């Protein structure tokens, strides 16, 4: 019963999306105001069908209905309930189904938020988004149908991939990434609408920006959680391996970040319109490319579940979106004429322009390294991959330059800055940066690029804090407000600016954490018998013994470890190896002792019950936790910036900087 119901719902979604797409685009092109109501109905139907299909699948999973193809692939009676529900996105077909539901939720959210707008733009945007919905519901109904019938019905299934039921982060990380990926459909629709009409007004630009910020936030959280998951679960002693699938999530994040910055230039100076719109199209294209790479099995990784047949379908869609995007840019792009010009060399917009070029360069290099093996294999049949050194050597200089600009941009006014302003703005932050390097040198830290990163982090953090606190000080002095009130009011009056700077502080944290954890890592391996110990940095690691345990879905063997740190404090750790009932290979669980400034990271490599003995990999990662501890800053900053403003505030608030010599109005410095 579940199989036909699920298939019927997906087909219903396909029909609703196709109908809505045609009515929306046709109505938008002919400016039919009445079409909007019909499209809103189609969107609602699409939402109900897609969410319904997902609920049917969850029901089939929870009731262990192994007659459903997908359940027979990933279900198992031994799997705990939470991981059974989560199996919805633990393999290819289910994750595409889940994609469809999120897509429907986004389109519905957009349609509700803009149902009172002048109808032409929303019609075109919704039509475009529903056209994407047609593709995904077609994918679910056809090549990646999870609702196929299995006969004879197996009594039990293999359960989800053991790696995916090893840690609770697996429950959170994929939905976050999907919310980020799928959300890029909305800015794509908005940008396509702007291109079709050949105009991008301030209001539509604000819409585009807000709907980019939402998926950008989810994508940021998803990427950081993914790094955390790799670190806490996979146990190879790292968090980022330039795996094609990691790159796939990083690429749209880069273009979306570039967009969020160039959007400010577009808003202030009314220029860079076509570039800004192109970045929106690129973000969507890269998410489709990413989904193709993750889900079609062209790359082998922990993320590519199976070799599947959806590859060609995806390539066709990717090609179609690419052609439509290029055509739109070529034919309609020239209509998006700039109404202003950029200011001088030492200005906010020039530094943002540079930032965008750096982000584009980074996108290019990561994309090149990611798809190069595919292209080469397609042409010469030689199987190769691009090693991590390529990515590190290319990305580190670009990243450092971006960190530098993060301090430069906010210091400079829009328009034109006098040499006097530049000197005054840079003196203190530069001194802080130099001081940071000096302190690090005095503390015995070495490594040119690492110290440069620390110094620039100090520089950028000083600039960011100053720009955040300067308006507060002005309020305290001129309005005689107490500190909390001044802080709250100045932040509330310039939300996007304040939120953006909070995110910048999070980015500085990530930079410092990556530099420290990559440069000052300590690693060793050891084989111990009970009672034996080894020394790693300040830690003494002693093996107490081996312990075995049985849980419903797995057996495990843990090494009981006593760690003594430099100050004599003791802690018990238990790195272990899990043996899942239905898989042949053991899955390790590392044990991590986290402290504010460093992690001790132990994995059990191998053990021998007879001797007994156990072999370990052990690492010390300085500051690695700061990467995930930056998450609250990302989330708070982005939420603060994206929170809908009351109309009164929106019309009244200006986001002018309290910087002298600022150009009086956009375009005046031309």
């Amino acid at each position, binding site marked *: 019963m579940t199989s036909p119901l699920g298939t019927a719902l997906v087909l219903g979604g396909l029909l609703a999306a196709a109908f809505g797409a045609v009515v929306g685009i046709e109505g938008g092109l002919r400016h039919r105001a009445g079409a909007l109501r019909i499209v809103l109905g189609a969107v609602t139907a699409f939402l109900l069908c897609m969410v319904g299909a997902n609920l049917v699948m969850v029901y089939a999973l929870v009731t262990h209905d192994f007659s459903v193809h997908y359940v027979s692939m990933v279900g198992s009676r031994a799997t705990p309930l939470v991981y059974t529900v989560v199996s919805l996105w633990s393999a290819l077909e289910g994750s595409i189904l889940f994609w469809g539901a999120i897509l429907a939720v986004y389109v519905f959210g957009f349609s509700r938020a803009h149902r009172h707008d002048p109808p032409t733009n929303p019609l075109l945007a919704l039509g475009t988004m529903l056209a994407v919905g047609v593709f995904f519901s077609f994918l679910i109904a056809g090549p990646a149908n999870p609702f196929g019938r299995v006969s004879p019905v197996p009594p039990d299934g293999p359960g989800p*991939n053991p*790696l995916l039921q090893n840690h609770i982060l697996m429950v959170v990380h994929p939905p976050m990434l999907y919310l980020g990926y799928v959300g890029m459909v909305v800015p794509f629709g908005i940008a396509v609408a702007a291109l079709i009409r050949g105009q991008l007004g301030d209001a539509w630009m604000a819409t585009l920006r807000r709907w980019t910020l939402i998926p950008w936030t989810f994508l940021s959280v998803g990427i950081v959680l993914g790094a955390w998951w790799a670190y806490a679960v996979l146990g*190879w002693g790292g968090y980022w391996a330039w795996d094609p699938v990691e790159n796939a999530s990083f690429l749209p994040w880069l273009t979306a970040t570039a967009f969020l910055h160039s959007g400010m230039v577009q808003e202030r100076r009314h220029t860079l319109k076509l570039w800004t719109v192109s970045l929106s199209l690129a973000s969507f294209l890269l998410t489709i490319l990413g989904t193709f790479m993750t889900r079609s099995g062209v790359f082998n*990784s*922990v993320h590519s579940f199976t070799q599947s047949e959806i590859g060609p379908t995806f390539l066709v869609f990717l090609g179609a979106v690419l052609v439509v995007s290029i055509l739109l840019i070529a034919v309609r792009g020239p209509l998006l004429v700039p109404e202003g010009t950029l200011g001088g060399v030492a200005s906010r917009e020039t530094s943002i322009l540079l930032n965008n070029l750096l982000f584009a360069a980074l996108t290019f290099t990561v994309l090149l390294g990611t798809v190069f093996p595919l292209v080469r294999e397609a042409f010469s049949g030689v199987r190769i991959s691009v*090693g991590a050194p390529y990515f590190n050597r290319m990305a580190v200089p670009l990243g450092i330059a971006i960190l530098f600009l993060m301090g430069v941009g906010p210091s400079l006014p829009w328009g034109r800055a006098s040499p006097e302003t530049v000197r005054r703005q840079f003196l203190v932050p530069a001194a802080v940066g130099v001081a940071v390097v000096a302190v690090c040198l005095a503390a015995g830290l070495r490594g040119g690029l690492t110290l440069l990163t620390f110094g620039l982090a100090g520089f950028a953090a000083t600039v960011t804090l100053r720009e955040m606190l300067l308006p507060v000080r002005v309020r305290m002095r001129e309005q005689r407000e107490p500190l909390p009130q001044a802080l709250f009011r100045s932040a509330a009056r310039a939300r996007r600016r304040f939120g953006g700077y909070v995110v910048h502080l999070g980015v500085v944290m990530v930079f410092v954490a990556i530099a420290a954890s990559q440069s000052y890592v300590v690693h060793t391996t050891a084989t111990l018998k009970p009672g034996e110990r080894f020394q790693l940095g300040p830690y003494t690691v002693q093996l107490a013994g081996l312990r075995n345990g049985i849980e419903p879905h797995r057996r495990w063997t843990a090494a009981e470890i006593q760690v003594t740190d430099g100050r004599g404090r003791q802690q018990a750790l238990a790195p272990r190896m899990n043996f899942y009932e*239905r898989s042949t290979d*053991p899955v390790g669980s590392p044990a991590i002792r986290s402290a504010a400034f460093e992690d001790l990271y132990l994995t059990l490599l191998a053990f021998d019950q007879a001797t007994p003995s156990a072999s370990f990999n052990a690492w010390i990662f300085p500051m690695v936790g700061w990467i995930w501890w930056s998450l609250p800053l990302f989330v708070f900053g982005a939420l603060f910036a994206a929170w809908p403003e009351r109309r009164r505030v929106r019309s009244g608030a200006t986001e002018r900087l309290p910087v002298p010599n600022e150009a009086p109005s956009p375009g005046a410095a031309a």
Partner: protein
Amino acid sequence: MTSSTRNRLFALGALLVAGAGLAYVAFGNIGQNLVFYWTPGEMLAQGSKAYGPTIRLGGVVQPGSLRWDAAHTHLSFRVADTDQPGAPSVPVLSSETPPQMFRERIGVVVEGTFDRSQTFTSSRLMVNHSNEYRPPKPGDGPDKWKTTVSAPTAEAR
């Protein structure tokens, strides 16, 4: 030609130069950091071209070839195309503690370099397992490990 057109052409030229420079650096860098996926047979067929670059050598651990040195710090074994006797094979030297699953006849991928001494020096030893976590079937040839070995984020790393 107005000054704004000239500026625009100048900016376009600068961008093209910067883009070309970036592409040049990137392609050069990629060429130096390629990792080749070969079986012992394929690698031996490359001759001296196989000396130097990073290689991921995939195959099975030849039965009877496992040796530890006296101090139990270095492990040597032969990786062969298949577990049939007479299949092309290469001696491998590893200083790494092998993962729990490591044993004779299991599929492995070793990453490292090959040189004139005809010994493969491994810096990383991965036990080959499929994405679907089932043992390799008897008929699975060398093509199979290619498709099932997990790439960089493998937990065996």
